[in-house]
């Protein structure tokens, strides 16, 4: 038994020799060492590939928890992604390749994208958007969605993309928190061959708000009220006059909201300079992308993966980036592989939940297609279970003879891969990988003391890197908390992890009341407040239960108001209510009616107890339980 366990632990999956030899980053260890010994030289050098209107004088000013990069430098991330690339001869190169579920393609070259972005930016400017203004974007995964982001940042304004799947309450809250001047919204998104209505969600979310709206209308051209504009009309009736606004390196590029355990979503702020430098570094070294590659991050512009690896890093590096709207298994479970075959995708970035979905459908689907172009499959968003890794390695990259599966771990706050398995190192099932260049990670206990290898603890980062968040929008205090939660001036990721002797990290799950459903972080408090906003619900508690596909699924416990009686119809009504408020990803898959909820004496709901009951585990210390 012991030997077997040992063998299992020793299981190593390697990238093929040829791939390792052709890797953009060959000497990983040396690179890593240098990144920690001379972070300024290291990042400063990489930053030189970009255009700086005013060169930066100092790479890093580090006064934890504050960190500032590329001081006194002025630049613009979108200028670097578009003008710079057009000028170096990529004008007619395909920048974005949009695919719909039914296989329709739209290619946009760097030259065209620049033209569209400048048109839209001119229009935004005419609507009064300027440097520092916030623009909320609620758009389906489309070229127009990307244009909206880039046009905003082109002017030095700050975009805040809200995933077009979140509901009314979530959207309204984000619009209000960001203090948005303008909303750019789609009327419909396409999924499983059907149109998903966004218009009514938007209309409800902005009710009574004095907000200008630009509508990207695909279903039909509606009669728009005063102050509302049609996206296409605006785009084509505005000349491409706007020029990129050069901003300080530390000027906010975007706000992206992420859920926390405290209830209110946090607006994570990333900035032009550091984000541009850091995300591209990992695109080249971790994702190993070559100039002529087709890169496909199968995420959405509503998430950080979409920001960093559909939009910014690939465009900044002049790569062709794929975006596909719709479900991965529609019209059939081979849909993704058809895309890989047809467009010769070289590097793909997806989520464990997708890998598990493919696993469910079986290896015959990928086998039907020519995946010979696929070199690297990166997976992130939640822990990749060993079976899924092995399956992907066996069936998607030809058992390691053709390519490699690279697990990696990071967060909205971190902007780009933080832990991961570079393709020059072996993958170990169950382990996300090692700390990547620029990252100093550790597993500690609650006092901040390191725990011995193999033992669980809190995952912390001991130093900042350029593409790490700068603040929480409108709540710098909340930002400081990240660094204060664990003593020792470290960043607490909020995840539980362990590290082995070789420095590989295994991320086990959240340390707080945050659920990870199909890679999306969902605060229990968000779901609970949505539940209690239903007129029949008095109290509610939600927990995450393991799900073979999504990793975690939401289970809700509900106490009804007096006079209400449990019924299947009510259950359905409650579920629909949450879907409307928060969107489909935060919808409970199960609702249980209880007489009352277990609470601590201070009145805090003991989710731990609910979870333990659910999973048949020892609930642990129940001393604080209210009888």
């Amino acid at each position, binding site marked *: 038994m012991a030997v077997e366990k040992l063998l299992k632990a020793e299981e190593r999956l390697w990238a093929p020799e040829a791939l390792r030899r052709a890797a953009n980053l060959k000497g990983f260890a040396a690179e890593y060492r240098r990144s920690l010994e001379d972070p300024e030289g290291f990042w400063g050098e990489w930053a030189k590939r970009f255009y700086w209107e005013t060169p930066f004088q100092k790479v890093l000013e580090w006064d934890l928890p504050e960190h500032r990069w590329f001081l006194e430098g002025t630049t613009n991330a979108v200028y670097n992604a578009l003008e710079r690339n057009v000028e170096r001869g990529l*004008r*007619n*190169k*395909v920048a974005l390749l949009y695919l719909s579920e039914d296989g329709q393609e739209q*290619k946009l*070259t760097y030259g065209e994208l620049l033209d569209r972005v400048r048109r839209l930016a001119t229009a935004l400017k005419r609507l009064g958007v300027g440097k520092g203004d916030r623009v909320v974007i609620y758009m389906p995964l489309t070229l127009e969605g990307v244009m909206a982001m880039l046009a905003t940042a082109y002017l030095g304004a700050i975009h805040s993309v809200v995933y077009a799947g979140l509901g009314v309450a979530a959207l309204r809250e984000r619009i209000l928190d960001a203090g948005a001047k303008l909303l750019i919204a789609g009327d419909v998104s396409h999924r499983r061959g059907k149109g998903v209505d966004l218009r009514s969600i938007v209309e409800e979310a902005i009710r009574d708000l004095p907000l200008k709206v630009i509508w990207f209308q695909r279903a039909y051209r509606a009669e728009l009220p005063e102050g509302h504009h049609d996206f296409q009309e605006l785009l084509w009736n505005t000349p491409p006059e706007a020029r990129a606004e050069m901003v300080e390196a530390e000027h906010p590029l975007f706000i992206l909201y992420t859920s926390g355990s405290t209830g209110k979503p946090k607006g994570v702020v990333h900035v032009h300079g550091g984000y541009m430098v850091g995300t591209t570094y990992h695109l080249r070294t971790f994702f190993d992308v070559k*100039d*002529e590659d087709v890169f496909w991050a199968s995420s959405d512009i509503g998430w950080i993966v979409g920001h960093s690896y559909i939009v910014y890093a690939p465009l900044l590096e002049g790569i*062709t980036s794929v975006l596909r709207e719709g479900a991965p298994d529609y019209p059939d479970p081979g849909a993704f592989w058809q895309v890989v075959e047809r467009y*010769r995708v070289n590097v793909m970035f997806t989520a464990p939940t997708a890998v598990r979905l493919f696993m469910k459908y079986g290896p015959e689907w990928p086998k039907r297609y020519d995946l010979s172009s696929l070199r690297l499959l990166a997976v992130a968003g939640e822990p990749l279970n060993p079976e899924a890794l092995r399956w992907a390695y066996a069936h998607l990259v030809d058992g390691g003879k053709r390519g490699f599966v690279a697990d990696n771990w990071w967060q909205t706050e971190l902007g780009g891969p933080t832990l991961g398995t570079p393709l020059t190192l072996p993958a170990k099932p169950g382990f996300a990988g090692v700390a990547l260049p620029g990252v100093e990670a550790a597993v500690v206990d609650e006092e901040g003391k390191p725990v011995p290898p193999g033992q669980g603890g809190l995952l912390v980062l001991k130093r900042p890197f350029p593409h790490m968040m700068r603040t929480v929008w409108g709540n710098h205090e909340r930002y400081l908390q990240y660094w204060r939660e664990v003593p020792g001036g470290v960043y607490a990721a909020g995840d539980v992890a362990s590290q082995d002797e070789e420095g590989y990290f295994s991320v086990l799950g959240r340390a707080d009341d945050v659920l990870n459903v199909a890679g999306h972080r969902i605060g229990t408090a968000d779901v609970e407040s949505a539940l209690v906003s239903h007129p029949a619900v008095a109290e509610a508690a939600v927990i995450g239960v393991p799900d073979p596909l999504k990793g975690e699924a939401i289970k809700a416990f509900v106490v009804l108001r007096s006079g209400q009686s449990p019924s299947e119809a009510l259950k359905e009504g409650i579920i629909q209510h949450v879907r409307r408020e928060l969107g489909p990803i935060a919808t409970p898959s199960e609702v249980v009616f209880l007489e009352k909820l277990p609470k601590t004496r201070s009145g805090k709901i003991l989710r731990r107890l609910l979870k333990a009951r659910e999973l048949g585990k020892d609930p642990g210390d129940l001393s604080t339980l209210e009888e």
Partner: protein
Amino acid sequence: MAKKRSLSTVQAALRILAYLAEHPEGVEVKEVARLLGKSLSTAYALLNSLVEEGFAVKGERGYRLGSAKPVPLETTPLEEALEELYLRTRERCYLALLTPQGVRLKTRGRQGQPHPLGETLPEEAHALALGKVLLAFGALPLPPLRPRTPYTLTDPLALEEELKRVRESGLAAEMEEYALGLSALAAPLFGPGGELLGALGVVVPARRFPFAFSRLARALSEVAQVSPYLKPPEPPSLALPPEAGFRVEVMEPPDELKEKANLQDLAAAYREALEDPEAFFGAFAREFFWERPWEKAYDPESRRWFQGGLTNAALNALDRHLPEKAQQVALLTLDGEGRLEKWTYRELQELSARLAGLLWGLGVRPGDRVALYTPTGAEATLTLLALARIGAVHMALPVGLGPEALRDRLLQSQARLLLAADGYYRRGQLIPLRPVVEAAVAGLDLPVLWHVRGTTEFLERASEGRPVDPVPVPAHHPLFLLHTSGSTGRPKGVVHGHGGYMVGVAWALRYLFDLKPGEVFHTTADLFWVVGHSFGLYAPLFLGGTSLLVEDRPDHPSPAAFYERLARLKVDVLLTSPTLLRTLRRHGEARPTGLRLVGSVGEALAPEVWRWTRENLAWPLDNWWQTELGAPALATPLALPAKPGYVGVPLPGVEARVVDEGGQVLPPGAKGHLVLLRAGPAHMVDLLGGENPWRGGLYWTGDLAVMDEEGYFRILGRSEEVIKVGEARLGTAEVEAAALTHPQVAEAAAVGVPGEEGEEIVVFVVPKQAVPEELKPLLAEKLKAHLLRHLGPVTPPRVLFAESLPRTRSGKILRRLLKAELLGLDPGDTSGLEESDGGGKAS
């Protein structure tokens, strides 16, 4: 025309009235005639007019005095002239009097109505015949040129022409006067010192004008001229203006274009290309992939290029650019349904390699001829590239060719396979091709591979093929066969090879059309012409560039759509035909585009069109070549100033001369036959079914030309179309260019027909705006005088109007058809004739 009248009409009328008063019992017409000493009809007319106005009544026993009191007649001579004109014409007549207070309008008409415009001229005087007279003789400042009717001249140039004509003829006409449904004629009235006193005019309903014109014109000019104070105007002069004949302008390209031009030292390049082709074209050819290098870049004996070399055009168009340009857009295709698609180098390479596999599976082997009857688009492009890949010879046939012509060419070329589309789009309409193809191949042992429009079947089938590698072939191995467009006779098959063609067209695209990396190139020529082959497809891909291909007519549905397309797709360099440029010019001002350069090929680019292009689109690059030559031979690269009307100088690798029939070189300025002593690398490798143009060491182009002292060539038209007028020899292009300098001419075609002195010139003219039938004689006269001023003293040409000109599908004017029509002869082979719409394709 009486110099001194015995009796004015007014005096005559007064005498009649006096006589009537004396004879209340009634007066007969013949008495009146006797009284006046005039004819019966004159007397009758005078009496009638008196009756009409109530001064006289007609009773049973003749005429008696009427009840109306005679209006006290004004006595000034000018007003008398008005009365006189009225009496002569019986139409409404107007007099514009120049007074210190401005222009005053006086009217004399049947009912004596005042002029509907009141007492003064409207601000837009140029919309009135009277106004034109006043403008012509400087009595009015030039008014704001606003259109009042569809026929109002608003182009200052056109108006100036018109006023000049008024000055010369002493007569102004206006078809639709100030939108009142009236037509008018007017003439000036001069004082004793030659000063302008006013203008006299007559107005009739527009519908009657054509019939009344001659009568009114005669009356008006007589009345105006016989007015005692008038001096007769100068007779219209046919004397040549000081700048007779062809006016040469020298235009420097803008500094920015010149400084950044890919070719800086044309003289050195030209010298080196002739003296050491190995060094010059060899160095350029080494940018390409050669499986085996050539032994000799150019062999003057055989006129072969890159002999001994092994290469493949498709490999150099696609595979050579991979993987670096894998994701770059190689081709933008816009089909007739408005679908825009972008094809990357990787996609084109992969799909064409797979299609090549499919074709190989169908038995196509190197050297086999495969015919294409497919409109411009991705499917056609992929097929051409796939065939080139396996060394097969592609033969694109123009869609729209009739079944017989198609069958003829299929038989003549012994095609092994036909790839055909079942339809193509022209001006938004899907025109079926299946019946044509089925009729053409009926009974032939020729398999057809169909591209069914509106489906992706063809592409899907192509993508199922097993990709094959490019087959290296000798440099002169045939790449394609193209039939020349046959503007002058039976089509011949021109064969181009892989090696020299590749080097020649790529050189021209980079150094003549000055394409830079990252730019978008567009030719409006269909893929199935040589311009489409060389510059729609091959040259842009050889250079790793991006080319836009459009199926439908460039100006469909409107010229605005064309400008919009150029702007949206950011086309930098355009290669088109004078036909399209003329069409655009006819529609007026262009919309802004991002164009940097506009190449023009296919016909002579008239100086007027050259200037319009430069002012409205971008710097024009005129160039001359033929299907046989594969790439431009004469042109004006950016390194040289342009001389509009002159196509330019021989390009590196080309030697050109103007010679007489015997091949003797003629001095500069002399008209003669254009011949080449040497042609560039893109010269054809074979010719099927035609006379070899190389005779006695010279390539006879069949064109007439003249070379100036600086070595610039001007193409004067086809030598078989030359017009011999008296002693003069005029090229058709020469006459047409002259016609096009007239602001009202959009298109022109000149032919010679047997006449009194050798031949007579007949010019067919398409006016810029529709001309009403009535005005055509006037405009024709105007054009005749205009042509004579430009052409010098020859027999006046005949001017005929046409709505459009017959053209070959590649856009060349089919002059022999016009000539045949004029002479009632058999027009001969018309398979190359374009459907009757004036869109443009170069060739």
